[in-house]
């Protein structure tokens, strides 16, 4: 029943809606930019201070602290997650308590408590061998690292746990059936796969950490915010210096986001050629890629 075929030309809608939104939004943007430019902001203070040594060293301290605190957080987080999922009831309880305690209090408070630990423990001793004054150990750097890292660990442990739970139970069983213990299976089979689910939220939290380091300014750790504050306490140019800080934060965060993209890509190896009919992996993919 083949009829003579009419040669139709297809006409797609011209998308006026889209074009109008575009023009409107661009106008709003220009207006905002102009207001910033004409507002009571002295732009030369921004450009002058962007690359002063004080600000640059603040940026550097911020980056260092972000990475060290995240590293500590990830180590503690994985340990807490594995403890939570072990068969040992005691370890389970400790993990739950740890997460509850450190997720429950603000970072600022934890920083202040670590920094002022000497009020509670004036001296620290190592197996009775060496005894040191707490304030000598608990420098602003160490207090910031502990305050931020230990709290991060509590958050990370939940992320890691979700990642582990997202892995099909069959993976554990397959690993066990070739003779691995539960622990070996966790380390060699489950965790590497869980990484794909874990990395995106960890990426978010690293970005969060960049900004959290700003709190360390209260305990004299001289990161970026503290550096620009030092400048504006002298010249009273608050907004201008905050914009300097904002610019640097944006730069660091943007670079981190790009880094996150590549790390994610690395951890999804083996999922790339997704042609086989494995519904489960497609699904986890989708969750994971929702960065």
């Amino acid at each position, binding site marked *: 029943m083949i009829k003579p075929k009419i040669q139709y030309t297809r006409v797609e809608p011209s998308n006026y809606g889209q074009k109008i939104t575009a023009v409107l939004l661009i106008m709003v943007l220009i207006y905002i930019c102009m207001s910033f430019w004409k507002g009571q902001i002295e732009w030369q203070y921004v450009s002058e201070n962007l690359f002063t040594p004080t600000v640059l060293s603040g940026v550097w301290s911020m980056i260092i602290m972000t990475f060290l605190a995240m590293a500590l957080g990830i180590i503690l987080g994985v340990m807490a997650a594995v403890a939570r999922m072990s068969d040992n009831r005691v370890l389970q309880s400790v993990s739950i308590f740890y997460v509850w305690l450190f997720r429950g209090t603000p970072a600022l408070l934890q920083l202040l408590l670590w920094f002022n630990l000497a009020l509670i423990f004036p001296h620290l001793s190592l197996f009775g061998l060496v005894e040191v004054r707490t304030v000598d150990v608990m420098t602003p750097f160490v207090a910031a690292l502990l305050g931020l890292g230990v709290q991060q660990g509590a958050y990370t442990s939940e992320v890691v746990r979700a990642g582990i739970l997202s892995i099909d139970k069959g993976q554990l069983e397959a690993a066990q*059936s070739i003779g691995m*213990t539960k622990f070996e299976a966790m380390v060699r089979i489950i965790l590497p*796969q869980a990484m794909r689910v874990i990395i995106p939220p960890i990426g978010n939290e690293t970005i969060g950490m960049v900004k959290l380091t700003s709190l360390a300014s209260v305990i004299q750790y001289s990161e970026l915010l503290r550096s620009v504050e030092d400048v504006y306490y002298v010249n009273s140019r608050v907004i201008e210096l905050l914009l300097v800080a904002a610019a640097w934060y944006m730069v660091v965060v943007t670079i981190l986001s790009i880094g996150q993209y590549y790390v994610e890509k690395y951890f999804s190896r083996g999922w790339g050629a*997704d042609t*086989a*009919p494995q519904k489960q992996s497609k699904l986890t993919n989708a969750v994971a890629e929702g960065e």
Partner: protein
Amino acid sequence: MSVIISAEQINKHFDDLHVLKDVSLDVHEGEVICIIGPSGSGKSTFLRCINQLEVTTDGIIRVMGEIVGYREDGDKLHRLSDRKIAAQRSRVGMVFQRFNLFPHKTVLENILEGPVFVQKRNKEQVKKEALEILKKVGLSNKANSYPNSLSGGQQQRVAIARTLAMKPDAILFDEPTSALDPELVGEVLAVMKELANSGMTMIVVTHEIGFCREVADKVVFMESGEIVAVESPENMLTNPTHARLKEFVSAVL
């Protein structure tokens, strides 16, 4: 022929649910046992008990004469450590319905994982053997592919290869073809047939009646946690002694 696997009146409860009821079975060297039965009858649970993915609540299972999961001491059974149970488990292979390949490792790495990491055998030696096995299952050219780039049938053949590389005393198959597209079932069954012919001891849970008839030495029919009938594959189709078996076989066919 020696007994490779023997289950002696094992029982399994999930809380209130009595899933296996006094199940006893002996599997001799080189035998192929097919287990059939309706959904929920406990077939998977039985295999999982043999491989200690589940712990039985009563009764004992022996592999090569050794009680699994426990050390015998007079009339006492002491629970073994995780490490020892893992070692016992590696002596019986298991092929899963959903393949359960490690998606972050290549086909070859999947196969090497057990022998090299668990059994600590020489990597180069194992690699040679692994490639041999891959050839046997017809996947020589896929050694460096990742599992998710393979079809279901290919994945299942890799899973079989992974198990074979462990040199197990027996292999358990839990519905190895029921997650496959119909066109892909044949290639997996072919590999399993060859394996059976080569003298491997196998327990196969399956709905493929054709395969049972051709390959099985015995067909075990389970229902609500009990072994209801043990038949020769010929009788199963033509002249089953048990009414429910007859019904089941004609429904599945």
